[in-house]
């Protein structure tokens, strides 16, 4: 897939190439926290899902959640990573919502390494690592400006989130355009949901994206990067990267140096702002967490997790594309797969229907349906066959489908009959075409002279005469035949 030529139109800005790597934090859908038995549940009353471990009380000890390890393995395997012997470390820093003043995080020995993610376009983004770590609590700063701790009157801390399991997925700096970055986040989200690792809701913070952005002249060494935080939607991922690239190229053009720093994306003014520079960065004093032991999944466990993985979005798109003779990144394929309705299209085909027509109908008419539409696949199959056989025109089929959807099923032939959609016989259609040639003589002359646009008037006349029931393709065919014979 990766060797297919992709992104022919590379993104460049005044000759500079964009280089982006993404760090994505996702909350795992475990029943309990990473190191304690408190529920992992979003939206509960503050400080109700807490315990001595979540609060970092003296004497409390972490015990690793097996389900979290398994979900991290599922995600790693879905991203084509190697699952390896891994350890936890302490990342030491003071912050009021960090209860122990250190975060337990995998550091130099993460559970997943060296994978990749293929975008729908076929572009391959390398995955450096996926590591397990615990989330912090959540601070709300009251008073002052902008909800920042600095200058606030006081702060409220909710420790419900403290200890919620996260996986941080770090991509290689392979991304070259804002569109690829958006596509990466969207595809990663689809995979997370598919494997059941996370609900990946960016708006609730269960999926959080940081972007490392730099620019360089093609072929040159990597430029100095800035890390962009606060990207709360796929759209802001694209906008922020675009803005940041412009800013960096502007600075280089003005002869300034890019400073390595962490920047904050402001959705309102559409800019990134300095949060802290590298010189201010904490020394985290990482060392191996002595309260936990090595996590070393054996081959049997890994194999068991691998075999329990569902068909992933890329393979599902490919399957649908193969069935419909479309590209895997064709819009209908993307949309229908994202809605999870690709299985349904497959079952329409299995019921003897036409996959291509089914895909179009599902995309157009099933937006309100979930991943398990109520319309029996056999009913849609029947409709597509009536179309293929020429018994129904595309316009008629659409009307019949609307009724089938409204009734959660129905016999296409019976509905067509009740609407009076009798297939016109050839002689009836031919006489209508001949009538049109007579009544639209000017258009006919122009059409014969090779003016393709004139065909519209002729087809339109036939459609009007047939009250829209004529098959446009058949009308065109007769017109062409008449012209050749004239």
């Amino acid at each position: 897939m990766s060797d297919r030529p992709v992104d022919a139109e590379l993104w460049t800005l005044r000759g500079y190439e964009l280089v982006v790597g993404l760090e994505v934090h996702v909350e795992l859908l475990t029943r309990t926290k990473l190191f304690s038995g408190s529920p992992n549940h979003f939206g509960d009353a503050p400080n109700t899902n807490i315990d001595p471990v979540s609060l970092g009380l003296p004497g409390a000890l972490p015990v690793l959640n097996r389900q979290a390890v398994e979900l991290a393995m599922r995600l790693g395997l879905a991203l084509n990573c190697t699952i390896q012997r891994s350890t936890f470390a302490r990342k030491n820093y003071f912050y009021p919502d960090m209860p122990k003043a250190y975060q337990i995080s995998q550091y130099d020995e993460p559970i997943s390494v060296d994978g990749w993610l293929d975008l729908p376009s076929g572009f391959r983004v390398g995955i450096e690592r996926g590591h397990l770590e615990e989330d912090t609590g959540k601070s709300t700063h009251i008073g002052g400006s902008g909800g920042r701790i600095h200058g606030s009157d006081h702060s409220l801390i909710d420790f419900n989130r403290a200890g919620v399991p996260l996986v941080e997925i770090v991509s290689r700096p392979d991304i070259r355009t804002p569109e690829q970055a958006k596509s990466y986040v969207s595809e990663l989200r689809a995979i997370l949901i598919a494997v059941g690792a996370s609900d990946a809701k960016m708006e609730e913070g269960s999926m959080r994206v940081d972007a490392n952005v730099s620019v360089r002249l093609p072929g040159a060494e990597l430029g100095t990067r800035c890390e962009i935080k606060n990207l709360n939607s796929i759209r802001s991922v694209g906008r922020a990267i675009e803005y940041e690239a412009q800013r960096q190229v502007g600075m280089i053009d003005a002869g300034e140096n890019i400073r390595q720093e962490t920047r904050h994306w402001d959705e309102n003014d559409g800019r990134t702002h300095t949060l802290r520079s590298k010189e201010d960065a904490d020394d985290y004093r990482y060392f191996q967490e002595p309260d936990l032991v090595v996590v070393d999944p054996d081959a049997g466990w890994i194999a068991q997790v691998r075999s329990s993985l569902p068909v992933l979005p890329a393979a599902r798109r490919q399957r649908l594309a193969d069935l419909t003779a479309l590209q895997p990144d064709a819009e209908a394929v993307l949309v229908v797969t994202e809605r999870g309705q690709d299985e349904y299209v497959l079952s329409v085909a299995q019921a003897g229907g036409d996959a291509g027509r089914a895909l179009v109908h599902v995309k157009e008419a099933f937006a309100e349906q979930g991943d398990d539409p109520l319309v029996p696949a056999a009913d849609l199959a029947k409709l597509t066959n009536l179309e293929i056989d020429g018994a129904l025109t595309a316009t008629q089929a659409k009307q019949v489908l609307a009724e089938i959807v409204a009734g959660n099923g129905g016999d296409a032939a019976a509905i067509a009959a009740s609407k009076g959609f009798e297939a016109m016989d050839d002689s009836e259609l031919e006489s209508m075409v001949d009538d049109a040639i007579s009544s639209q003589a000017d258009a006919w002359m122009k059409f014969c002279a090779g003016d393709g646009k004139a065909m519209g008037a002729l087809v339109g006349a036939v459609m009007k005469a047939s009250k829209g029931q004529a098959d446009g393709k058949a009308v065109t065919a007769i017109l062409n035949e008449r012209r050749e014979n004239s």
Partner: protein
Amino acid sequence: MADQKTGDQIPVAATDISWEVRNGVTRAADVLERYLAEIERRDDDVHAFNLVLVDEARARAAEIDDNVVMGRVLGSLAGVPVALKDNMCTRGIPTTCSSRILDGWKPPYDATIVTKLRDAGAVIIGKTNLDEFAMGSSTENSAFGATHNPHDLTRVPGGSSGGSAAAVAAGFAPVSLGSDTGGSIRQPAALCGVVGVKPTYGAVSRLGLIAFASSLDQIGPMANNVADSALLLEAVSGHDPLDSTSIQQGPLEISKQLDWGVAGLRVGRITDLPEGASPDVNERLEVAFDALRAAGAEIVDVEVPAFTYGLTAYYLIAPAEASSNLARYDGVRFGLRIDAPDTNAMYLATRTEGFGDEVKRRIMLGTYALSAGYYDAYYGRALKVRRRIALDFAQAYEKVDVLLTPASPTVAFRMGDKTTDPMSMYLCDTYTIPSNLTGDPGMSVPFGTGESGLPVGVQVLAPALKEDVMFRTAAELERSMS
């Protein structure tokens, strides 16, 4: 119901107390009152306790006596008063680590050892003094004042479990629990003339033990005799699913083998042991070797070349872990908070006010050892030394079953003697530290007296989970003294 007993009518050994209470010979309440009276009489001078749980202990003793009357089956420590080092969490009861920083904090949960003690029928009599956060070798670094050695009130009891050692030595409790990170059970045991055991790392749950250095900390018993320490260790050991470093096996089995003797055991003498032990201590060690030889053991010379590097490695690893473990005392969620204009100033004021000098010294030392650019030279190298020490001990244990060393280089020293010189204080742990680094068990057995008639302890070391052999050796040394 047993008749009321007082004083001399009540046995002093925990094994006897438990037997008599279970069989209705002696009431748990009478046992308790004997110890409470002794505390009342002398603890103002000794200051072994931060808190005596008079009401709770009386209620508990009464409950046990009721159970006896009702014929309920009681555990191995029925009616036995136990003193707990005040770094073990007791639900709803202040747990201070002898530090101001935990001012007002009451744990919302019990340490696993507390649950196990309760299940065994023990009566927790109080929380004992320690060097703040278990950092020290004299119990002088306590925010609540020093503990004194019951044998000579002008001398230290050792540390950091000095309160637990002094409580047993003074007759305030038949047994106690301490914690040992670099010798904090064995050294005070030696100085107070009691038995002190650091079990194999992971044999006793650390859940609810307030961490000093997590990879080294281990809870262990202190007692007047070897059998009582075995009884207590058996009761508190065993797998705890809530401590990831807990060993996956049942409680240790020791007591049955105490009388097996040492005939045929190979007892190692470390020929390259670091020097520094005083003559009286070395003399007692020689007597110990003689006693074991006389009892049928073979004395074998072995080398443990890396032994001598233990102290250096320890004083990097332990402070490094401590700097991280003690970072949570930030004034945000519990304990002391000194208000200040902003968060960083609040952290600074709280920690400046809340921690004593020795704790601050070790936090700084550990922070430095872990810092970017210094990690490899200090912490990283210390870990290599730690592995090397483990290797050297493993090789020695191919030739011998146990090793004998001094527990402390000297007998109890005078209060104030070492408080101005941290290095001299650190040297107290020379002989005890290696077993914390390797995770192997070690214990100190009282073995006569040295200078000024003060107690001397001999240390028995054994490979991981060979507590049974270690205790057999200790029991033989004890027998040879009687």
